[in-house]
């Protein structure tokens, strides 16, 4: 009993020692310090992010159309008439909320990855919800973005139960600091949210090889649905992943950001979205503290390097 209390009371000190970043510290010492408020719209608005990314040479899923007004919703079928698959998402959404993936669209029937069949009425309702701000950060009016569906590389296929596994890279002052990939499970309902039961796999920032995998905060070795060895993951084109992440710093000017990158089997790594307030679960997936990684960059990494040089530096760091 007494040792349990002692253990609990010593946790803040020990967490600090191993360099785990807490929410308050992230918000106050990192985000408020390095991320200027005026830059937030660049990443909070997915349309803007896409345009900026294309300008700087980052590939993103192709934009099919934007629905900004309620009266345009009825023209939706016109917008997607040449596509059999697409994604509808709110421009100001967060945490994957309001993202609707249509895997197959034929004869006015929309099929989701889980096989559910939706009618135009359901789509109409969903887009209306997006426009009225249901999924946007502050609840303000939003626009719906329709973009091409990523054909995720079959390298990942066996590791994920539905959904697209993306790679999240935390970038600190332009240096990729930590990375993970989130694999959806049956329990998470095909979603990539860790608190819903998705698996977080920490990736070695130098190689893109998996370090360890966790589900519900506990280490796991094999995927519960596909039974694949989670420690055998090697993300191909790792340098390209890091380049996208490093470039995102030049693109936005945010000192602390999370870049979500997907691997398309034809077009290589693509940037899905950026996040100015990336979460802290990545530390659990990596079994490493972000504060320690940040302190290391702050102390040992040179400043004023180009994005290529920074990626080189990270890949060759020891």
């Amino acid at each position, binding site marked *: 009993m007494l040792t349990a209390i002692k253990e609990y009371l010593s946790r803040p000190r020990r967490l600090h020692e191993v360099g785990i970043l807490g929410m308050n510290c992230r918000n106050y010492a990192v985000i408020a310090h390095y991320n200027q408020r005026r830059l937030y719209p660049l990443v909070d608005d997915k349309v803007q992010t896409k345009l900026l990314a294309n300008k700087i040479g980052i590939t993103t899923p192709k934009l099919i159309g934007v629905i900004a007004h309620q009266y345009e919703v009825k023209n939706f079928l016109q917008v997607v008439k040449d596509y059999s698959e697409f994604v509808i998402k709110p421009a100001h959404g967060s945490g994957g909320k309001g993202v609707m993936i249509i895997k197959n669209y034929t004869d006015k029937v929309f099929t989701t990855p889980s096989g559910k069949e939706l009618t135009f*009425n359901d789509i109409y309702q969903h887009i*209306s919800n997006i426009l009225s701000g249901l999924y946007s950060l502050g609840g303000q009016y939003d626009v719906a973005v329709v973009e091409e569906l990523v054909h995720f590389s079959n390298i990942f296929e066996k590791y994920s139960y539905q959904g697209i596994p993306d790679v999240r890279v935390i970038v600190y002052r332009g240096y990729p600091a930590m990375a993970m990939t989130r694999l959806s499970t049956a329990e998470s309902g095909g979603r990539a949210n860790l608190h819903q039961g998705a698996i977080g796999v920490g990736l070695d920032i130098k190689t893109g090889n998996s370090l360890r995998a966790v589900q519900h905060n506990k280490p796991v070795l094999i995927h519960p649905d596909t039974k694949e060895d989670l420690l055998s993951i090697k993300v191909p084109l790792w340098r390209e992943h890091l380049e996208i992440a490093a470039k995102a710093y030049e693109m936005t000017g945010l000192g602390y950001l999370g870049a979500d990158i997907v691997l398309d089997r034809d077009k290589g790594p693509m940037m899905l979205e950026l996040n100015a307030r990336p979460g802290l679960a990545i530390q659990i997936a990596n079994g490493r503290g972000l504060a320690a990684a940040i302190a290391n960059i702050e102390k040992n990494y040179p400043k004023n390097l180009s994005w290529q040089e920074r990626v080189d530096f990270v890949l060759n760091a020891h």
Partner: protein
Amino acid sequence: MLKKFLSVRAILTIGLICSLIFALYSIYCKVEYWGLSFNPSQKTNIWTIEAHVSFMPTGEPIKVSIAQPTVSEDFKILDENIVAKKYQIKKDLKNNRIILTTKQAEDMQHLYYQLLLFDNEQAKGKIKAPAPAKPKKPVLDEQSLFNLQQLITLSKTMPGDVPQKIIRYINQETPDASVVALLPLKKSPQEMLDVMQNALSLEGIPNRRARGIKLAEDKKSFTPDYMLEAYTEGQWKLYDINNGKKGKPENFVLYQRGGISLVDVEGGEDSSVQFSVMKSITSTAKLASKRAALAQQQESFDNSVFNLPVLEQNTIKWLTIFPLAILVIVLLRNVVGVQTMGTFTPMLLSMALVKTGFIPGLICFTIIVSLGLLIRALMSKFNLLLVPRISAVVIFVILIMQALTLLGFRFSLDIALSAVFFPIIIMAWIIERASITWEEDGAKNACREIINSLVVAVITYFIISSEFIRHVMYVFNELNLVILFIVMLLGTYTGYRLTELKRFAPVLKDIEDVDRH
């Protein structure tokens, strides 16, 4: 620029310290001079002493002089009132007397002098008196002097200090020869005091007589009691002349000191003075204004919240509790790390709970939310747009509230009657958010969100519903300023949240295990 010299945290800490010093000083003033207290139900006794002077005029011009009570520190005069028709009233501040004069009169004269006193609990026996001059030796004939000296010598066997010894010796049940020689068997207080004072003067102890009134409820037609005062150990001390008990009796007002008469009447005969005492009780806060005036702080009091009309005071009473509730929310969110629906939703819920009462409020909340969720679930089939949909939920909430109130009245259920106190819009948003979470993340998450918010609301409720805390936050509203700085300082808190200690515990263990190997 400023950042160069001072960090934000340092500035805020200085602000907090300043506001704390200000608050402490202000609280000190309010307690010390305005008589406000931390106890919400503190009452102060108010004593009305009435001196009724009556006499028969002799036909000459009349001059009545009444002693004003020597105000000791433990009582303060709230108000004075003289009822004396056709009399001119003058105050003789030097001698502490009130002089009433008039031309000759014929009928029996009745004059009333009323005095309102209140307990001044804060200052009991704090002031030391300067040492008076040594008393003169009493002028007595040889026999009396001998008797007195013998009395003093014999009294040495009695317990207590010198005045007590003498008093006790004189008051022995079977008085011995030296007492009998000086005093008649049926001795009056004045006679006893004469002997006591002579004896003390002979011993070189400064002394004087005092008269005062023992305050008791509804005492009528009495004369003030005599007491003996002697200067010992650097202070004037009161002695009960009947038993030698030292110190001022409780609820005793010293009316007058020295041998001066209570009332002198010129131009009248058969004069008599009769006193009566009445006790009334008032809340301490109501007296604050009078006390502030006494302490020459009327102006600052006039600028305080206590000078507002009662209605506004009640509003402010309600407002001053908000900062504390906000502080609780900030602590629970940023230090404990509880995730709630919306930032201030729990606070508004707790405010509603205060109005409805705890159990009825919780039951009502549960009914409204569950009915609302049910209706919202049925409505989701209609595929309405967000704003009309949330509006419809608002109207549903209003309808549920009306129905509950009607049912409550019809079947005399007080619980249902409290429905109207819940903030309608907040309830509608809770239902809407919960139903979205329900659809997206499952019922478990939706319920957890609601329960989290409710737990935070209940914690806040218990803090703000405490009579004591509400009283303190209102009466000492400068604490709001302190809370402001605490909240701002919490804005720079970078430590771990309590929930993070649990969240990161497994990864901490893993890292430490890896480090060990």
